[in-house]
């Protein structure tokens, strides 16, 4: 048997083995169900936590939670300069690429945070994003901005991958205030 035939046989046996392993897995992939990438999955990426639904049904005022904003709406606001954008990722990720005119405000803090917040106050709406589908870092930073008194802070649904996938306006380059320090220069 030649090598190509052997490869085909190993691939066929392997595929059958894989399907068997999937059937035996405690958390199998559902074969009939399409799996979308996190950036394409509106429900899976930065979705409103299920606990929000519960908190709305109680009589006590619910604690503030970052409201999500869809990437299409955010793109429109970005193009029209109607919202301030905050990048909550690390300095290297920010330098590699970020939403156009976004300010860098990582979870660890910013050397000139008061000035950044003052700049953001000029916008009626501020959109925070990070690079992870869970949006945990963006949620933290959004909470910080909210506590600083910004009236309308939202978190970008789908995070940076969704923005890239939607081909939103972006730029590259390090953060002016913290770049040199963060890059050890």
């Amino acid at each position: 048997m030649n090598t190509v035939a052997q490869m085909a046989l190993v691939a066929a046996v392997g595929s059958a083995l894989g399907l068997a392993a999937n059937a035996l897995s405690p958390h199998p992939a559902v074969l009939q169900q399409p799996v979308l990438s996190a950036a394409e999955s509106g429900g899976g990426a930065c979705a409103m936590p299920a606990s929000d639904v519960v908190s709305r049904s109680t009589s006590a005022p619910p604690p503030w939670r970052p409201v999500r904003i869809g990437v299409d709406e955010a793109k429109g606001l970005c193009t029209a300069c109607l919202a301030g954008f905050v990048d909550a990722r690390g300095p290297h990720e920010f330098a590699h690429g970020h939403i156009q005119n976004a300010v860098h405000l990582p979870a660890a803090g910013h050397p000139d945070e008061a000035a950044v917040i003052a700049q953001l106050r000029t916008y009626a709406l501020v959109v925070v994003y990070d690079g992870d589908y869970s949006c945990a870092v963006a949620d933290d930073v959004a909470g910080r901005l909210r506590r600083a008194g910004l009236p309308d802070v939202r978190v970008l649904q789908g995070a940076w991958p969704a923005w890239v996938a939607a081909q939103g306006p972006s730029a590259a380059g390090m953060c002016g205030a913290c770049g040199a320090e963060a890059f050890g220069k």
Partner: protein
Amino acid sequence: MKLLARAARIILGALFLWASVTKVPDMAAFAESVANYRIVPPSLVPVVAAAVVGVEIAAGVALMLNLWARAAALLLAGLLAVFTVGLASALGRGIDLACGCFGGTDAATWWTVLRDVVLLGLALGVAASSRPDPARAP
């Protein structure tokens, strides 16, 4: 030289066997990792994810037992080439994704790409050093 080739074959086989074993407990998570590369149509992702794991198992076992080692190594080289191109393409586009390589959720970096390139070289080396030998075929 023969000893080195044998060691490379066994290491490559063990590595892929280990990689596949770490994925089996949560195949759904691995399917999500595959989807995040955005190179497979969503409807095919679960089947492709299962097939990838199975091919890793079959090729890993074949390499360790020295059965059709050349074919197994070439198959793994093909998988590694796809992984490497997919990862590099995603990182180049600024997509933040988990590699899904060893069942973990660690973010992929350019180091992951470099590791895949090294493994690709190893797989091609194993394929080159394993002569097709019909007499050995089971």
